[in-house]
């Protein structure tokens, strides 16, 4: 068996990559998603969004819903199209803004998750590490991050750094707390097994401790994705000169709510995609649990 089996990141070559999108809304169970009856019924999931959008459009077209309050779906779609094909002096292009926002999010999330895991390994494996690091991390965690924004502007100005840092911190704490709990929750009986099998410290970490902490760590990752998304939306609107947040602040000034809607819908799609990716990762990484019913 290849190395991947040992990290717990291996799955059999089942037809797992089929229709990953189908599992994103509401997380249809893996096995269930594959059954034909279930797949047929998953078609029903489209019904309510389509009805809502239809009613919305009807309300806008008939003037019940004034365009000054909420743009119609059709005009939002048109705005999105226009933002993509034209490079307006006010907004730039949509794809450009999207790229900037994604970059902030990706960097912040990646650094936050990595640092969170590293800190959790340090505190989870060593009582000394816990005694030294955990109090300060718990203290930092209890500071409302939104309240830090004014300070961040004072410290780091209005460039990319405070935004990325804000995203990073939001991703860090859920990852840290859950991974730490996961490491501490690893069955000590398996530790004894590792001991009698003569595992060295790094092998114990690789084969027993980290895979054992993985389910909790993935729960942490899910929370990190959600929290960092919120941080991105908020952080980007502060003195932004680019990105989706910048588009929103510009649109606010020009009372162009269809642009705001476009940006919000894109945020929502990003969130859904990221959540789906984490779920897919979960299904792959925790295949050992799925096979005997979690």
């Amino acid at each position: 068996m290849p190395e991947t089996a040992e990290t717990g990141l291996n799955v059999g070559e089942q037809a797992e990559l089929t229709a990953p999108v189908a599992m994103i809304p509401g997380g249809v169970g893996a096995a269930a998603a594959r059954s034909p009856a279930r797949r047929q019924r998953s078609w029903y999931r489209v019904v309510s969004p389509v009805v809502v959008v239809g009613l919305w459009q009807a309300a806008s077209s008939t003037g019940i819903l004034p365009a000054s309050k909420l743009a119609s779906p059709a005009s939002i779609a048109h705005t999105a199209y226009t933002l993509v094909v034209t490079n307006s002096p006010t907004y730039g292009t949509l794809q450009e803004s999207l790229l900037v926002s994604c970059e902030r999010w990706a960097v912040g999330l990646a650094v936050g998750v990595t640092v969170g895991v590293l800190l959790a390994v340090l505190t989870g494996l060593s009582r000394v590490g816990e005694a030294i690091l955990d109090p300060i991390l718990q203290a930092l965690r209890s500071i409302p991050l939104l309240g830090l924004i004014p300070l961040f502007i004072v410290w780091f100005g209005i460039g990319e750094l405070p935004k990325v840092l804000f995203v990073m911190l939001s991703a860090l704490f859920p990852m840290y707390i859950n991974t730490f709990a996961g490491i501490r929750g690893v069955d000590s009986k398996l530790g004894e097994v590792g001991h009698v099998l003569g595992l060295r410290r790094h092998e114990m970490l690789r084969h027993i401790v980290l895979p054992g902490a993985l389910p909790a760590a993935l729960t942490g990752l899910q929370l990190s994705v959600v929290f960092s998304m919120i941080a991105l939306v908020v952080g980007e609107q502060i003195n932004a000169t680019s990105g989706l947040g910048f588009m929103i602040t510009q649109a606010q000034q020009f009372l162009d709510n269809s642009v705001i809607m476009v940006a919000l819908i894109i945020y929502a799609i990003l969130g859904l995609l990221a959540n789906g990716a984490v779920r897919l990762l979960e299904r792959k990484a925790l295949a050992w649990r799925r096979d005997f019913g979690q």
Partner: protein
Amino acid sequence: MAPRLRAVKERTHSAERDVVSPPDPLTPATAASVRGLNRKFGDRIVLDGLDLDIAHGEFIALIGRSGSGKSTLLRALAGLDQEVTGQLSAAGPVSVAFQEPRLVPWKRVLANVALGLRVADPQASARTALDEVGLTERASAWPGTLSGGEAQRASLARALVRHPRLLLLDEPFSALDALTRITMHQLVLSLWTQHQPAVLLVTHDVDEALALADRVLVLGGGRITHSSSISLPRPRDRDHPNLVALRLRLLTELGVPAGRTD
């Protein structure tokens, strides 16, 4: 006291991790030797100056009432108890099969058996071990999908693949149904015959001890209070007069009133 005996506190576990077992001139004369082993849990004395020698290739069954310290002794021999005092030496490698199979749930059966194995081709060795316990076709199964008997066989394979000179079995069959248990007894005997490790089987089942062991020890009051050798060839007839007599004797030693054999 023999010079090979070291204080427990000074003992390194290097011997147990030594997978290669060359003809070693320093090989101890016994598979395990214990002198004056003490262990307290709080105020409760569990092992009280216990002495024990296990010969190479000897199959020992250790019985005792629950709480008598059977598992404590086994854990001390496995190097899992850092609190015991006294002298203790074991010829490595030492392998353990626990009451619950303790397979690592996120590793497939083969990877479980190969875990920590330091040989040229761990996978091949693991496969051979799985063959021996009759689990070849479950090599790529997740542990969670195994039956109780299969999981114990995987656990045995993981213990045996290290070619132990001392195999510690901590009530490994107690959670199995009666039929599976009989199959497992036969399997353990055949593996023992083939590999010739010394075996220390901790059990609360007198019949299991009588069916398998060369020597049955009773643990009570923190020491070995009784030792009986059984020279009958295996498989043994449960109703052999010698075994019937010994069963009564052992039950008496365990404090079960004579006449009750259930």
